[in-house]
């Protein structure tokens, strides 16, 4: 991926030239060692920019390891609000193992804040380099023992605060938030930050162009991870049963869920209106979800690709026996166990048809923390309404990284419990579990515990007739599977609509979902400045609503941009809109890193040019 150095200053301060100043426009990467506590330092930086009112986003690129391997934290500060990953122009080089490669990766004119105790073999005189005497600073502040490594990371916070112009009071407040106002911890870190700052003020001559200045672009916004947002949404969606099995990157979803539930749904005497259960594997987790759904509870589990694989048989059962349940799949790179700590959109096609035979599922596709929150509660409604498993496909980037978002909107409708008949309703109308009374394919169910003897039925994944009695008759099979298709058409109207942005006169449309939107939106704006325009449709769910067909019909070519190798969404669109398939092109790419705008721009350009040429 290429980086355009257009906004990067060449070494400033050269004699005779007016120094260039770049304000609130920074792509910083912090290279440290996993497990040394750099997360605190990085979060403090991130939050400092945020509380100065400057749009910011952080991405932790970390290894599948607990301690000792390299980790990179990308922080993008952008006055215009772009938060896609950007190739860094400024580096904090604090990892001996990667320092050479990290320095080499910087563009000409890039800035490196280097741990002076490391001895890189790469020497670049086209960079602006600051060496920080980390050991000396730690000695001066009397840091000893286990805390030393941890404190070492605070030195770059102090130095950057000076270089970039972040007031120390802002850093201190950011730490206070991070530590939940435990002042002792704040003070411990501030000692090192202050000393490093003082040292930088006295010893460093500012030679780079980057600075930050307060803005008011983050007023009313929050900073949260997608997993936290999804978990919080689920709490407000009335989740009661949450079995799960740990797997990165979904674990923090359940961690957050447990915390919020304890805070909001546990009585003082300890009584809980929920239960969170660590199951023995994902098979069991989804089995419990369906058992709970059958009993009438609102149940969810969270997992990632490998867990989803294990859930296959149950997913088919859930579809065919028509049982509600929610499965959050926080995607990471496959196939097999793939790259466990890197992001991907590779589970789409799999999740959509998970199960054996003719299976189709609702798949929700959040792209922001606001949507994670919203889909958190909506997914539980949808599952009950449609009586079927609902998959929410988030990804590692969205789930585990910290994003800005608007304050969440409280659910605007009461909880939707779907077609459940009580004792009297069964007496009045009679009951047949799979009888399509309303003609919409969604039938009525009763819950165990219903005292009306006519309400009982035997749920099964094997062939059944409209009264849930075992049947191998061809007519029963057809009637049932055709009704399920009809139900899927009803569902099309229930899932969230796409976000469509038509550029007047544009002949090319881009279809995408999830977190690729940030790079795509930025690329769109960059191309627009060059007079090249395209429309966008951001898909929020499967099955497809009619808005997708209209969008494709309205454009000569449609490019589906997605983070997987095999163009999964493009494949689904071509299969479901066969008459429009020839117009559907694809940019499908996956290397474990979130897309950048220049990458999207570069990949889209040939399509945009080709259509321009065809039109001419």
């Amino acid at each position, binding site marked *: 991926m290429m980086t355009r150095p257009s906004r990067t200053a060449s070494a400033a301060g050269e004699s005779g030239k007016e120094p260039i100043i770049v304000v609130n426009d920074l792509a910083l990467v912090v290279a440290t060692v996993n497990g040394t506590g750099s997360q605190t330092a990085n979060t403090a930086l991130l939050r400092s920019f945020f509380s100065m009112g400057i749009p910011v986003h952080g991405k932790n690129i970390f290894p599948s390891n607990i301690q000792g391997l390299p980790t990179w934290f990308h922080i993008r500060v952008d006055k215009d609000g772009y938060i896609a990953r950007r190739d860094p122009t400024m580096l904090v080089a604090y990892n001996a193992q990667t320092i050479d490669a990290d320095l080499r990766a910087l563009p000409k004119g890039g800035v490196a804040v280097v741990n002076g105790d490391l001895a890189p073999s790469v020497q670049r005189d086209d960079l602006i380099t600051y060496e920080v005497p980390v050991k000396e600073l730690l000695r001066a502040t009397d840091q000893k023992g286990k805390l030393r490594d941890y404190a070492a990371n605070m030195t770059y916070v102090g130095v950057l605060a000076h270089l970039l112009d972040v007031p120390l009071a802002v850093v201190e407040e950011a730490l206070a938030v991070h530590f939940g106002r435990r002042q002792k911890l704040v003070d411990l870190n501030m000692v090192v930050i202050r000393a490093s700052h003082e040292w930088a003020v006295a010893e460093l001559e500012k030679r780079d162009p980057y600075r930050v200045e307060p803005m008011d672009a983050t007023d009313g916004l929050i900073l*949260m991870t997608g997993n936290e947002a999804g978990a*919080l949404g689920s709490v407000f969606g*009335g989740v009661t049963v949450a079995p799960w099995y740990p797997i990165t990157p979904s674990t923090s979803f359940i961690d957050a869920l447990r915390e919020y539930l304890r805070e909001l749904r546990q009585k003082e005497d300890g009584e809980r209106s929920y239960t969170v259960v660590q199951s023995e594997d994902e098979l069991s987790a989804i089995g*419990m979800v369906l058992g709970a759904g059958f009993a009438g509870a609102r149940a969810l589990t969270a997992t990632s690709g490998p867990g989803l694989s294990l859930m296959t048989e149950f997913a088919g059962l859930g579809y065919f026996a028509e049982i509600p349940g929610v499965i959050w799949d926080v995607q990471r790179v496959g196939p097999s166990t793939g790259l466990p700590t890197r992001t991907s959109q590779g589970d789409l096609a799999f999740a959509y048809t998970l199960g054996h035979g003719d299976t189709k599922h609702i798949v929700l596709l959040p792209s922001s923390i606001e949507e994670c929150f919203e889909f958190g509660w909506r997914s539980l409604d949808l599952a009950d309404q449609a009586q079927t498993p609902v998959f929410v496909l988030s990804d590692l980037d969205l789930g585990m990284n910290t994003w800005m978002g608007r304050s969440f909107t409280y659910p605007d409708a009461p909880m939707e419990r779907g077609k459940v008949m009580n004792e009297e309703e069964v007496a009045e109308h009679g009951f047949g579990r799979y009888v399509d009374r309303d003609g919409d394919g969604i039938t009525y169910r009763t*819950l165990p515990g219903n005292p009306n*003897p006519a309400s009982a039925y035997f749920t099964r994944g094997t062939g059944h007739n409209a009264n849930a009695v075992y049947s191998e008759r061809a007519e029963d099979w057809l009637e049932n599977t055709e009704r399920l298709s009809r139900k899927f058409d009803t569902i099309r109207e229930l899932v969230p609509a796409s976000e469509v942005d038509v550029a007047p006169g544009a002949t090319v449309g881009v279809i995408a979902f999830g977190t690729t939107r940030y790079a795509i939106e930025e690329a769109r704006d960059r191309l627009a400045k060059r007079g090249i325009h395209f429309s966008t449709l951001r898909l929020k769910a499967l099955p497809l609503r009619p808005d997708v067909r209209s969008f494709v019909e309205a454009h000569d070519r449609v490019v589906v941009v997605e983070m997987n190798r095999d163009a999964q969404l493009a494949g689904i669109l071509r299969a479901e809109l066969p008459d429009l398939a020839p117009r559907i092109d694809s940019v499908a790419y996956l290397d474990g890193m979130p897309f950048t705008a220049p990458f999207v721009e570069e990949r889209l350009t040939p399509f945009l040019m080709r259509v321009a040429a065809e039109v001419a």
Partner: protein
Amino acid sequence: MDRTRTVASNAAGLTKAEYGGTPSTLCVGCGHNSIANQIIQVAFELSLKPHEIVKLSGIGCSSKSPAYFLGMSHGFNALHGRMPAVGSGALMGNHTLRAIGVSGDGDTGSIGMGQFKHMLRRNVRMVYLVENNGVYGLTKGQFSATADEGLDLKYAGHNDLPAIDLCLEAIAAGCGFVARSFAGDAKQVRELLKAALSHRGTAFLDIISPCVAFNNDDLSPKSYAYGRDRKSPLQELGWIPKAEEIVLEQGDPGGLSVVELHDGSRLKLRRVEADFDPTDRNASVQRLMVAAQKQEFITGLIHYDPSRPSFAEAARLPEAPLAALPDDRLRPPPEALEGVLQRYR
């Protein structure tokens, strides 16, 4: 409900027939059928309210049988080996239900061993029955993990693998109610079922249930003939309802002991083996080991320990089922959302 009937009805106002299900499609003579009949009989005798019961099963001939009893209770025929998860989930959603889970030796001892043992650890309120025939009935006669070592069968050939003892596994997993019985001993099956239904956690019953199609040669330890001739009860059992007095009888060989069950009912044990105490976990394990070595077919209550809390108690669930909680207990008010978000600004 029809009040003019002449057939005898129980305290729940139901006849025995009303505890039945659809006609069995299993082989005539299959042990599973007689167990289903005992469940019907027990439910009738105990005047169980069908809507307070939920039936669950995995996949197999045995797992089909919940369709053949308690037709007025909700049921769930799940996946092969996965009934424990579905049952656990159903009981999390509604812990006021009593579950009757039916599984096979293949369903539990092979594909479902993990789920089985983990469900026992959680101690949900389920009577877990394994209808143990030592073979896979539904897939036509392969050895299961409980097949006896050295057994020769026409289809499956020679079994040179050691048998898994599901009762031992259950005790090891922390189950507080472990019993073994024989489908041909209807009375014992009934008394154990009654006691198991009175237990608030998971009660495990390993019932040898001959497969007349694939494993009923007289020499096979899972056959009717073998069971009839060789079964050796540890106790004579009598379940006594809550309100009833215990009548002591004379002439017990090893004395009488009474086990208090969770719902106030009791199980009277007239010891056949005088020095076997099922409340002693080590003794239970040892007795099973000895039985395996000596090829004894012991039946009866093998282990009993009521002390562990049930899942619902440990999870601090409210009195009402989670599935029945009103919306305002599930969705906190707008101020609560605001309160949380405040921390993220």
